[in-house]
């Protein structure tokens, strides 16, 4: 925010929250949803989410008490909705890390308005995702067998050469580090909530959560360093997580799975889908909790650009897979890709291509990038498209094996669908609770990018003038 006559401002104004904001107003606005009784909008959304959650819980109950035979899987197609949902939700989580860590490293200050909610989304999405492999084990109460611990069976160790085990490490590391990063980001803001608390219970709870943070500059200095380091660690981590998810497929010899572009392709797809989900959520949330001044159309427009760029990367991957399938001369590869586009699952394939590659191209036009309705509709399309991408990769590659006798078709049962619906219930319930109990916007970060001001809001100078 330079205040000299500078064309850069005029050219592309930085999408900062409104300049008229004062520090105290930021505190009041952001803390408001935590300090008032939720309105009708929140209760409606929350009861809807609880409804979905109930469907999920019933499906889980049925699954755990009966076995994974209740799903529509068969001998040929051993992975379908479960792993699709797993990859889908892990991917959703990636935008949170991208916004909180990568955009931080790139000094994209506009991220401060959205990083907190995006990080929360990461954590809830990873929790939701983690459910699927656990449930797929059939006996989730034995899931601790996935970890290498000394045991009385030998010790019989886990197989470190299996990509499924890499997943265990990747997803649990990702969850742990994201949670730590999120929590450390929250500490100063929780201290703010603590100091505003009017009753003792709130003061004790938020006091404990804030760990007694005082805002000492000597602490801030370490704090900022740690935040930077965690951003630096999260960046390769987020790349590794979806790369390792892609290894689940790519290390195999199944045509359509074994291809070397999978790791970066999955990462681009994850960011793409994650941004679409952040957009879907924020368009609703900014309205419901009145944060339009913080999460501006400019923020959403930037996200549109990222969606379009990552959508093109995904399109690049689709194209190179097709080209190399032909170029390789391998009849199996060639068959798989022709079958994807024109076989029994062609409907799924073209849904994917339309939603992920064609439709986001409307974001080339500024009119479309600034129209909330259009953005919302397209973000939904991308969510659908990215779910189908994983479905196409998993199911179409499996349903035509090397031997025609194993050819098959997957049809979901109501329990497959129930769990998919339920996963949205888990995610939305957690997210809505979050908007009630924790500051949805990183107050300290927003304040640090506001121009220096006196309390009354009289402008005084800027950071850059002082630093």
């Amino acid at each position, binding site marked *: 925010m330079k205040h000299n006559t500078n*064309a850069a401002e005029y*050219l592309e104004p930085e999408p900062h929250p409104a300049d008229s904001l004062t520090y105290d107003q930021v505190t009041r606005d952001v803390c408001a949803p935590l300090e008032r009784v939720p309105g009708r909008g929140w209760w409606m959304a929350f009861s809807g989410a609880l409804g979905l959650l109930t469907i999920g819980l019933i499906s889980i109950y049925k699954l755990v008490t009966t076995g994974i035979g209740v799903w529509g899987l068969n001998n040929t197609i051993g992975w379908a909705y479960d792993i699709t949902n797993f990859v889908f939700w892990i991917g959703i989580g990636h935008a949170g890390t991208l916004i909180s860590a990568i955009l931080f490293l790139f000094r994209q200050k506009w991220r401060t308005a959205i990083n907190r909610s995006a990080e929360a989304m990461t954590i809830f999405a990873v929790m939701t995702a983690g459910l699927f492999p656990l449930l797929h084990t059939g006996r989730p109460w034995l899931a601790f067998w996935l970890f290498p611990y000394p045991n009385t069976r030998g010790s019989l160790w886990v197989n470190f050469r299996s990509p499924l085990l890499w997943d265990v490490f990747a997803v649990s590391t990702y969850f742990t580090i994201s949670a730590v990063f999120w929590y450390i980001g929250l500490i100063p803001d929780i201290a703010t909530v603590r100091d505003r608390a009017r009753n003792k219970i709130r003061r004790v709870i938020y006091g404990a959560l804030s760990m007694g943070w005082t805002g000492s500059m000597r602490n801030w200095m370490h704090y900022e360093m740690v935040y930077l380091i965690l951003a630096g660690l999260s960046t*390769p981590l987020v790349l590794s997580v979806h790369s390792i998810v892609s*290894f689940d497929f790519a290390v195999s010899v199944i045509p359509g799975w074994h291809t070397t572009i*999978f790791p970066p392709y999955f990462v681009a797809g994850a960011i793409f889908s994650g941004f679409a989900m952040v957009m879907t959520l924020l368009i609703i949330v900014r309205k419901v909790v009145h944060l339009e001044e913080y999460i501006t159309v400019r923020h959403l427009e930037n996200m549109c650009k990222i969606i379009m760029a990552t959508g093109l990367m995904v399109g690049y991957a689709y194209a190179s897979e097709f080209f*190399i399938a032909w170029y390789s*001369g391998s009849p199996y590869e060639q068959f798989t890709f022709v079958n994807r586009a024109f076989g029994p699952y062609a409907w799924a394939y073209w849904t994917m291509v339309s939603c992920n590659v064609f439709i986001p191209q409307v974001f080339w036009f500024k009119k479309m990038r600034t129209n909330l309705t259009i953005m919302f509709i397209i973000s939904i399309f991308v969510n659908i498209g990215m779910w189908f991408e994983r479905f196409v990769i998993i199911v179409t590659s499996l349903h035509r094996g090397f031997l025609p006798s194993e050819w098959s078709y997957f049809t979901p049962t109501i329990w497959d669908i129930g769990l998919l619906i339920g996963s949205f219930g888990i995610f939305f319930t957690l997210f809505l609770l979050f908007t009630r109990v924790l500051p949805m916007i990183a107050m300290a970060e927003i304040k640090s990018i506001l121009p220096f001001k006196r309390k009354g809001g009289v402008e005084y100078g800027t950071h850059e003038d002082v*630093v």
Partner: protein
Amino acid sequence: MSHHGYHSLADLPKPGHFHLPKTAKHIFIACVAIGVVSFAGALFQDATRAWYNYLIGYFYWMSIALFGAFITAIHHATGSQWSTPVRRLAEGMSSFLPVAAVLLLGLFLGLHHLYEWTHVEEVAKDVLLSGKSAYLNTPFFIIRSLVGMAIWAGFAHYFTTKSLEQDQSGAISITKGLIKASVIFLPLFALSFTMASFDDIMSVEPHFFSTIFGVYQFSSLFYSGVTTLTIIVILMQKQGLLKGLVTEHHMHDLGKWMFAFTVFWAYIAFSQYMLIWYANLPEETFYFIKRQENGWQYWALSLAILKFIVPFFLLIGKWAKVIPNYLLSVGVLMLVANWIDLYWQVAPAYSEFARLGWQELGIFVGFLGLFGLTVSRFYSRHPLVPMKDPYLLDGVNHNQF
């Protein structure tokens, strides 16, 4: 750190004028001479060897020049500010593209030596190669190469000309036009550079295929490009030409990019290697097996060590990115490692046993000299910093923290 920054474009110090020192000029000319003599000598002795070193030299320096255009486009498309003071130097790198276009024409003379798929009789005998002949054939190769080069050189020319025009007028409309052009260029770049990677480098082993190959070459393009840019910035600073315009903060950022792409290259290279190693399909593994025996294993190993592990540890600290001489030495090492990478990908297709001779060194040095002469000619003719760019003030005042 309490520098107050500049308040208007008029306050900024002017960059110095660059003159290529006489000795440097003589060294570059000597390099070109060595290159020409080595190439001619090699052509008589072992034409294939001459040509594949030519291919390596061409692709290596073309990538670095193309990085200049690519990073300029990224700069405009993302509205970056910090990179404004070094952008002209990147534009200067892309001034090598027209020379690369001429070198590409030269390369067409060597196609028969380089690419098995140009041998019509052999293609007819080989099911796989005849399957690919709709793509891998001489006329289509030439068309693709020329179209790609036209896109790169054309856009690079536009970026530079417009930027120089802004030096005069300072018009903001120019920046707006450059943003539009950059957004169009980037997808075209992705497609054309992927194709060039497949055509020039992957098809030296026409049976090999890998979907990540374009991304792999891109990681090397960025790796060597940002290293070259950093080296140029340091050399300019040593002559005192960018005083007050390029600060420690810019060096730190360039160093971060070098570090980031050291890691990114390792990530892509590991992904490609591990997936092929793990699936163990003979139609893919032959590529790496060939490159892991008869002496090539030492090249592979030195690649992992010199292209990734050593720069990773040398660049990880903050201090490492702000000591010019140190960063310069690491940069030189990285450029050498990048050459090892390209050589290790190309040469085993022609030479069962690893070898390194005057042909390799001589021809590579020739291209280096040519690049040095072209780029320094650009720098000596134009201002080193786009002094009327609307983002320049923020770029110069750029502060990391």
